[in-house]
């Protein structure tokens, strides 16, 4: 490529970037944040205008913050923040009139909104893009070809390792005419890095997304996320004022047409199952934003599109810890020392090294875009029912109802949307060989010990988990056929290996890849050629991926 071409491309790229809604919004950051503060304050006052009500809400917030600050502090809990809450408490005791409380409300909202807000810098974004794109690709080549001398080889690209399947072409078109809200499943901290790569690979403009404030404790994450349009969600804060500020931020970024990403499950799936219930708080901001858009711009207002995304892995680094947490919640597991696999920057790099050196693969399934009520959307942004009837979404929002029922109606819309997202997750979930073998193995072990409850089942020694290979083989074959029926009726996706290889290969591949980096492997072949597990709980985690399709009743 000639130098002139390169200069021209770089120039046109920068010009394009200036038009990104996220860049535009960030150019007027102070004004935007002021808008968020005012919206948050207004929302609080509209809910209850009385002095007593306001006093009560502030008092609750101060109390909760006090409790939080008395617990173990995070790195992000700076002295300045602690001082702020001490000042607020002092001010609260001196306040008596409504205007004092309103002033406090303003200050608290200011504090929260500035804590939540991201600060997008295109130059940082470009650096992060290059790191993900080239850094990972270099690591991949060095590891696959055998050593540092291959560091700059171009033989392998990230695309060889990570597959993106689904309606990507429509997504690119829709990103130009409306606002995309990606709603991925959440299994691992790696999801956020991967989705960043997906966005870049598909040529989409940057997305704004919420990340747990705990991730900002890690320097390498904090450095990039602070500049990537990431806003911070502190899950320790459950008070109404904080949640109102968070919702107002999300709502107004959507109204500014910034493409967004929510993890609607709220946190990583502890059980390894696809999410069955979603957190409705942030999702509801999409409905509010769409209504506000229609109120402002009428029938032709920009539409918000929901795009479900499912991450499919053979291996989830945090699986053993997550499933322990899940079992503990279910009253089955024992208390254990929590390990944060991503607690240090070097640990992340070590994991990435592992990922690229081993023969693992990932697949990211992108679902069809939907409108906010779950109707399918075409590349032009028009909504259609499953029977192909055109739907004017404006009518969902502007059918002339009274104000008091609007919120209740929109809560119901959010429910409808969450159900549509869950249905889409199950449809685009891509079955890997490892999911299949883990599912069958766990079901067979459970069946072998049908009289035991979960607590006793997990207490058995590994010798008691051994399965006869022939029985295992036949059952895998049976479930495989059921999965293919689901695939034919478009109720699930399957990996190319599942589609094109024979049963021996599928089982062998599945056994090799299921939870491949765990020190205790979920499934192995023993010296007699039978199937056994070194960690039943981890096997249970990977098995859970295929729950929800009613397949368990076919394992006999």
């Amino acid at each position, binding site marked *: 490529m000639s130098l002139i071409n390169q200069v021209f491309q770089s120039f046109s790229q920068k010009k394009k970037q200036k038009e990104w809604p996220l860049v535009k919004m960030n150019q007027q950051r102070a004004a935007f944040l002021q808008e968020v503060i005012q919206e948050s304050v207004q929302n609080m006052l509209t809910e209850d205008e009385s002095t007593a009500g306001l006093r009560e809400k502030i008092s609750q917030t101060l109390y909760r913050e006090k409790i939080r600050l008395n617990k173990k502090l995070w790195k992000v809990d700076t002295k300045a923040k602690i001082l702020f809450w001490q000042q607020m408490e002092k001010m609260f005791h001196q306040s008596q009139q409504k205007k004092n409380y309103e002033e406090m409300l303003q200050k608290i909202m200011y504090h929260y909104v500035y804590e939540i807000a991201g600060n997008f810098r295109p130059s940082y974004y470009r650096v992060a893009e290059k790191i993900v794109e080239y850094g990972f690709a270099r690591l991949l080549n060095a590891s696959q070809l055998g050593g540092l001398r291959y560091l700059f080889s171009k033989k392998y690209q990230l695309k060889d390792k990570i597959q993106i399947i689904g309606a990507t072409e429509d997504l690119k078109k829709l990103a130009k005419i409306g606002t995309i809200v990606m709603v991925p499943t959440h299994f691992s901290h790696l999801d956020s890095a991967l989705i960043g790569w997906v966005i870049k690979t598909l040529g989409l403009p940057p997305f704004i997304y919420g990340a747990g404030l705990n991730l900002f404790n890690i320097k390498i994450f904090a450095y990039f996320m602070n500049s990537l349009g990431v806003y911070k969600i502190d899950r320790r804060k459950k008070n109404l004022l904080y949640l109102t500020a968070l919702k107002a931020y999300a709502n107004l970024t959507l109204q500014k047409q910034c493409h967004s990403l929510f993890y609607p499950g709220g946190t990583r799936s502890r059980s390894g199952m696809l999410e069955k219930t979603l957190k409705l708080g942030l999702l509801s901001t999409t409905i509010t934003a769409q209504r506000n858009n229609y109120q402002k711009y009428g029938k032709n207002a920009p539409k918000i599109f929901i795009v479900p995304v499912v991450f499919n892995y053979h291996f989830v680094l945090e699986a053993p810890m997550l499933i322990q947490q899940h079992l503990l919640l279910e009253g089955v597991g024992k208390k254990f020392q929590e390990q944060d696999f991503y607690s240090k920057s070097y640990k992340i790099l070590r994991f990435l090294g592992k990922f690229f050196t081993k023969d693992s693969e990932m697949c990211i399934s992108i679902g069809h875009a939907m409108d906010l*009520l779950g*109707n399918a959307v075409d590349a032009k942004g028009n909504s259609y*029912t*499953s*029977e192909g*009837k055109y*739907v*004017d*979404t404006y*009518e*969902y929002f502007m*059918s002339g*109802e*009274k104000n008091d*029922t609007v919120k*209740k*109606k929109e809560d*119901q*819309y959010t*429910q*409808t949307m969450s159900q549509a997202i869950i249905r889409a997750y*199950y449809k685009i979930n891509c079955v890997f060989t490892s999911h299949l073998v883990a599912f069958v193995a766990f079901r067979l072990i459970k069946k072998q010990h049908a009289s035991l409850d979960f607590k006793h089942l997990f207490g058995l020694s590994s010798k008691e988990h051994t399965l006869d290979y022939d029985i295992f083989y036949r059952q895998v074959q049976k479930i495989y056929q*059921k999965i293919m*029926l*689901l695939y034919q*009726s478009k*109720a699930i996706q399957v990996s190319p290996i599942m589609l094109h290889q024979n049963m021996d290969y599928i089982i062998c591949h599945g056994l090799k890849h299921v939870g491949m980096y765990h020190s205790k492997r979920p499934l192995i072949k023993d010296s007699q050629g039978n199937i056994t597990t070194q960690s039943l709980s981890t096997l249970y985690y990977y098995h859970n991926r295929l729950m929800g*399709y*009613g*397949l368990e009743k076919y394992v006999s």
Partner: protein
Amino acid sequence: MDSKNMYHKPSIGVVGAGRFGTAIANLLAKKHNVLLYARRKSVVTTMQIQKKSAKQILHPNITPTNQLSVIAKKCETIFIMVSATGLPSCIQALAPYLSPYHTIIHGIKGLIHAKDIMQNDTIKTISQIITDASVVVKIGCISGPNLVRELEAKQPAATVVASKFEEVNKTVQQLLRSVQFQVYSSHDIIGVELCGALKNIIAIAAGCLSGMQYGDNTKALLISRGMVEMIYIGKALGASIAPFIGLAGIGDLVATCANHSSRNFSFGYQLAQGKAVKDILTEIQETVEGIHTVQMVKKYVQKQPIRAPITEIVYRMIFEQLPAHHALHILMKYPFHVDVDFLQ
């Protein structure tokens, strides 16, 4: 209100000109213009000439039609009052004309057979079928002890409107409430729909008891055990307990089990006297929803960890010719020891 002063008011649509559909149309017509839909042109013509439908005199504010497109165009709120078996074709025909701003209320006390993703048999309620088949989201149902004969006679009565949308409940209350007719609201639409459908099974059993000349002790036993069974099945299908202990549940159950003119009761009555199912249906000449419901529910409970002895026995009486006395004997021997434990 005089009909001449109501031309500016939006019309309300009623799809289905059977007995209940006509009764509801008459109730609505007190305050609104009503478009009453019948599928057959000849029925519409008869209504127009005789000013009568299903042996009821039509209120002057009712206009008969056989065009669904007209109903959808002129009415934001549409009541669907057809039989459960007639619903799929009805909603399929209506759906192309519906928009998201429409509100649909149904008064159907039945269930629909469906398949899940693994092609297994499952059950759907009427509102679930309407949701699947149309763009309408504001869906509600009315259910309760609404015996048409008493409604016609303008006796005091009440119904329950259920919808997840508060707006729908309020609309129906405004439309139907009058001095003679009270309208309660609920947000558990699935629960209210199931109350209306499941009580038909118990009504058939109650008819059987009367057919065998048993008295009130036996009937009270059936109603209370029937109620427990309805709640277990309802919970398995995703309903809460609340609707079952309200007007749409126990209220409707008591009314139907005491009413000799109820189709389900009457069917059970004749069945206990040894008449063949085919002959009874020929005589009744109308849909007996309980027969379809018992078929679906029996299949469903077989795969669930719940016991539904009354449903199973009613099924055997209808489809396996189990004699009534034998059926009662089996039920009396059934090993139930706890009266009520579902409220814990």
